């Protein structure tokens, strides 16, 4: 399964970002092959509205099965949930640590959005 982490870094030692829609990047790790992929989110980050929708669409089209992020708003959550993608709210720990915790079932998936819309806007 591919797991996506919102981050402003590029590798496993970088931290999970609290923002989802307006995160700088997503690091995607394939739990079977252990391959790492970096997806830039700059375009969505700069959109005037609907950043969460576009970030969710990007990850859905990447075929991820789980998303690890600090907070997830209602529109993004609706799309991810409809596509059967689990959302794991996570503090600002390293991607490597977060990946381990997901593997060991130490992070629990949320059943609803964790914040209201527009939470991640500056």
């Amino acid at each position: 399964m591919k797991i996506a982490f919102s981050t402003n870094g590029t590798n496993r030692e970088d931290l999970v970002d609290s923002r989802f829609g307006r995160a700088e990047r997503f690091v995607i790790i394939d739990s079977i092959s252990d391959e790492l992929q970096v997806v830039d989110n700059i375009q969505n980050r700069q959109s005037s509205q609907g950043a969460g929708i576009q970030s969710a669409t990007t990850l859905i089209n990447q075929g991820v099965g789980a998303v690890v992020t600090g907070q997830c708003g209602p529109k993004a959550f609706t799309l991810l949930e409809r596509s059967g993608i689990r959302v794991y709210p996570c503090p600002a720990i390293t991607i490597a640590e977060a990946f381990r915790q997901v593997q060991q079932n130490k992070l629990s998936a949320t059943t609803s959005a964790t914040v209201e819309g527009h939470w991640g806007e500056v």
Partner: protein
Amino acid sequence: MKLAIASGKGGTGKTTLTVALAQAAQAPVQLLDCDVEEPNSHLFFTKGDSKRDVVTVAVPHIDPQRCTHCGLCGDFCAYNALACLPTETILFEGLCHSCGGCMRLCPHQAISERQQRIGYIDQWRHGQIDLFSGVLDVGQAMSPPLIRAVKRHQQADKLILLDCPPGTSCPLTTTIHDADVVILVTEPTPFGLHDLQIAVETVRQLNRPVAVIINRSDLGDQSIHDYCRSKKIPILLQIPFEKRIAVAYSRGDGLLDALPGLQPQLALVLNQARKLYRENLT
């Protein structure tokens, strides 16, 4: 003449002034309440028979039978209102700006137009004043389409007074972008000055003639006067901070009910606004 009464800062007296100007005009007036998130001009008139028109906007309707999930509409939408997923295309109505682009673009004719209610407009007639009050439905995020619907009632042969929404963002610019003159109502406080400056910059970017009315003029300091002098903005009227005005207001009475003697000064404000309008034409 289309005269917009705006402020930047909320609670400075836009509606008080607009209603009083309408009453002082003694000529056919259209009062358009464009503060559609909280319209309150109508509170100062005795209610008569009103006419109500529902306002809708066009939003896309996606036919799942025809949609091939090609993603073109989602790529096109500048407002991210369409999420194109591998097996479905989902519309987020609240983000749609009704541009119609997705409907024209879709190569599979899968998108048609559907009307979505966003609010309504109430109309009353009080003597020579025709009052139009736009009311945005609770839960609707975008007021400009409703403001435009209110403004479509404008009749060029009448004096048009636009009671503006507060702030300086899209609702305000939608209301004032084609106004002949914009009057900014302010108060002589640091908050009043701060928001007045932002409002002046907005109005000047839109190339509209601007004038100022100072409410509660005997409070605070001289900073508004200094600012207006430096920016060459005429101050058309100063309204004192008077208990009589507040008492009248609390009963649903207007400025002219409290201070009938203001009528000639308000008529003069309208004349000075007309002068600014004419100067701007030449």
